């Protein structure tokens, strides 16, 4: 071997096409290996995951189908379209913002913090190619959940609206084009922020988060803090539609998407295709703009980010640890120390706590803003239904939290097992500390959220008690599932919690968690809701005579409560037991 030349002009560099082909081959090879490994070594796991996902998908489809069916039968023809348009525009607007924020965050990690880009930047690869490679990854990571959960709703709408075939044919292209716009814009914002203010990136993330929350508060306030009118009347619908006009800005992609879907569903295919073309053209334009920017900025931005934030970093808020330690005094010393360590790690990672904060702030704001509805709701059944739905939403938030934050904890701990195993610490202690961390950090905020929501809706003390008990059962079960599955299906190769959560185990955790919530809510809270409706509608009528469901309602109430307590105990103990067995055998 001899070094070819003294100048770098040996072999010609690959053309942009060959470079792209090389990356496509790389991605295809990795995907092929991952699929082959998954299907050859864990068919049962994949089968279970696909089965559970299908159940979840089917459930969402059923909810969407019933929901759109209900709206169509309740609301007259022209207003129905207006309501659906407002719903779609609002939903897609928030999705647009969430995708923009999450893609920017994901790209920060993958473009500026990953070891892969260090390798790629030391190869003669165009920076825009590296950027595109990571952009595609971010698009998949930030939008797969939307495509999985949004597709049943849109399919259900098409069926209810008796949409022609081209509605279904344009559905996927419309969604893909829509998703790629916020992802590209988020990527540009990320690049610009890292280029302009690399040393203030944490502040940028915090400001963006605060901005997002502020926008939501402003929107929620505009929607809810106005003179109320009677619920479900024509005037009320007109008023609400007027308030939602804000989301129907003609220059925003969410309006193009909802218009494209509605036009296609109504049979005006030319309009549908026009909106599809509009979305695709804008998606391609945003992508090209992002690539152009990356070609000029990425290397410089990488260098600036790598050079920012030098010097010492002090560990702040030691008083918080002292307080927490005092609060945890009744616990065994080893568990207390593990909990303190986890709380410190969580507190010092802005990417972790900012997401947690945003989720809970949003729900808190929502709960507070439910209040104006209370006076408008003159049918007490609606009060109960809204409080029941709020409980379910809090449950889903818990499932998201345990999947995103709790499930990866054992995998991350597994990477430090060489250290923990050398300490006089039983592995059970590690697992129990994670369980306590999860249960403790969920119970307080979620219990408060449910309390706040029920208090603003002025539900009866019995409903308060029922919802708090349901919340407790959910917290314990979801924590048990996340910690147990995390120990049973650890991913010791991955250092990023979001990637661990997006893997097989994390997805299974989310699916099982959601099913668990539906079961517990159905067994424990739903009969309470029905009984409340029955009693408030006809206070003097015996329950058995209220509806055909009457004779069974008391049985459902008592049996369901007992059943859900048993289910909660099983969901807590069984995964923990399975996880502990696996964790004891885990080698490092």
């Amino acid at each position, binding site marked *: 071997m001899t070094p070819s030349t003294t100048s770098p002009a040996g072999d010609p560099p690959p053309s942009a096409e060959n470079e792209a082909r090389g990356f496509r081959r790389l991605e295809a090879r990795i995907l092929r290996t991952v699929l082959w490994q998954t299907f050859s070594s864990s068919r049962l796991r994949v089968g279970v995951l696909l089965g559970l996902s299908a159940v979840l998908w089917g459930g969402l489809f059923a909810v969407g189908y019933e929901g759109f069916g209900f709206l169509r039968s309740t609301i007259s023809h022209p207003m129905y379209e207006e309501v659906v348009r407002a719903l779609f525009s609002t939903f897609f607007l928030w999705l647009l913002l969430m995708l923009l924020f999450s893609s920017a965050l994901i790209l920060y990690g993958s473009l500026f913090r990953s070891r892969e880009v260090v390798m790629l930047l*030391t190869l003669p690869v165009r920076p825009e190619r590296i950027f595109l490679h990571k952009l595609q990854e971010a698009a998949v990571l930030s939008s797969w959940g939307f495509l999985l959960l949004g597709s049943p709703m849109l399919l259900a709408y098409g069926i209810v609206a008796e949409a022609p075939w081209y509605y279904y044919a344009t559905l996927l292209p419309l969604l893909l084009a829509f998703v790629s716009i916020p992802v590209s814009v988020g990527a540009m914002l990320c690049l610009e922020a890292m280029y302009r203010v690399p040393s203030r990136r944490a502040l940028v993330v915090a400001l963006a988060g605060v901005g997002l929350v502020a926008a939501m508060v402003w929107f929620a306030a505009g929607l809810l803090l106005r003179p109320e009118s009677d619920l479900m009347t024509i005037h009320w619908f007109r008023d609400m539609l007027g308030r939602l006009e804000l989301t129907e800005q003609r220059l925003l992609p969410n309006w193009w998407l909802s218009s494209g879907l509605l036009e296609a569903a109504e049979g005006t295919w030319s309009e549908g295709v026009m909106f599809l073309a509009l979305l695709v053209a804008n998606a391609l334009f945003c992508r090209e703009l992002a690539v152009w920017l990356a070609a000029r900025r990425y290397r410089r931005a990488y260098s600036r980010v790598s050079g920012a934030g*030098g*010097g010492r970093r002090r560990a702040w808020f030691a008083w918080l640890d002292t307080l927490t330690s005092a609060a945890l005094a009744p616990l065994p010393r080893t568990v207390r120390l593990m909990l303190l360590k986890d709380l410190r790690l969580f507190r010092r990672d802005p990417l972790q706590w900012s997401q947690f904060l945003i989720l809970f702030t949003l729900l808190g704001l929502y709960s507070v803003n439910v209040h104006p509805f209370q006076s408008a709701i003159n049918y007490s059944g609606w009060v109960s239904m809204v409080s029941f739905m709020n409980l379910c939403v809090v449950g889903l938030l818990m499932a998201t939290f345990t999947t995103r934050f709790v499930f990866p904890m054992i995998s991350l701990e597994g990477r430090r097992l060489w250290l923990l195993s050398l300490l006089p610490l039983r592995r059970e202690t590690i697992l129990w500390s994670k369980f306590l961390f999860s249960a403790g950090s969920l119970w307080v905020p979620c219990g408060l959220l449910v309390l706040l929501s029920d208090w603003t809706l002025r539900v009866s003390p019995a409903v308060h008690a029922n919802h708090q008990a349901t919340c407790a059962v959910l917290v314990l079960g979801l924590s048990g599932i996340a910690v147990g599955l995390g120990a049973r299906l650890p991913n010791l190769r991955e250092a990023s919690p979001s990637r661990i959560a997006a893997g097989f185990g994390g997805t299974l955790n989310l699916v099982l968690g959601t099913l668990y919530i539906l079961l517990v809510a159905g067994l424990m809270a739903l009969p309470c809701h029905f009984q409340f409706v029955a009693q408030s509608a006809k206070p003097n009528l015996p329950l058995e005579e209220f509806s055909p469901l009457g004779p069974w309602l008391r049985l459902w109430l008592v049996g369901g409560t007992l059943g859900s307590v048993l289910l909660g105990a099983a969901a807590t103990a069984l995964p923990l037991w399975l996880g502990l067995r696996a964790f004891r055998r885990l080698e490092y």
Partner: protein
Amino acid sequence: MIQFENVTRRYGQTVAVSGLTLTVDRGEVVALLGPNGAGKTTAIRVLVGLLRPDEGAVRLCGCDAVEQPRRAIRSVGYVPEDPFLYEKLSGREFLEFAAEMHGLDRATVRQRIARETERFDLGGFLGDLTETYSHGMKQRLVFASALLHDPAVLVVDEPTVGLDPWSVRVVKDLLRSQAAAGGAVLMSTHTLSLAEEIADRIGVLRGGRLRFLGSLPDLRRELAAPGAPLEPLFLELTKTDGERSKDEG
């Protein structure tokens, strides 16, 4: 072939490399030594285009590493201390990817992979996924990938950490043979015996500044320690002011 011209690089307020001027000519092995935080890895990261200098310029085979990063990088084979490998690719697939990014045609890729496979004895595991490799196997694969395009400049950061004696020997021979064939080699290391054995010149960094640049005999002359091994000379050169005054006291 490698030129640092008065390069300064800061991390926030911290100056990692200050006014570094260093040239590595063809046929030469230069070892960068220094305590932790001396600026060795920063200098290397500036050289391979990961970091841009705040002041000064870096040239590789005459190409400015800041103005023409892709062109400059094409002349470099870089072996980092903690290399990244795609775990779901086999060693062969990884080499093919690296070669393709350097613009080698298929026939050349096959030929070069065969050459490096023989040199680094990769044949036994080249078809396996890299997630199954030991540290030594990974390091050998990364060396092979860095040399596929016959770079004029080889830059290595801690080349022998974690390697078995056989692999260390292979690496030492490789670095010398690369220089003997007309290439330039810049390595950063804490292994003083390695620098003593194979480096033509030694650069000692402390606090981001180049404290010494020259051959081992030059260093001995400068510190008036004829025949002394590198270790005491290095320790003397990298003493902090506090340590020095304590010694004098």
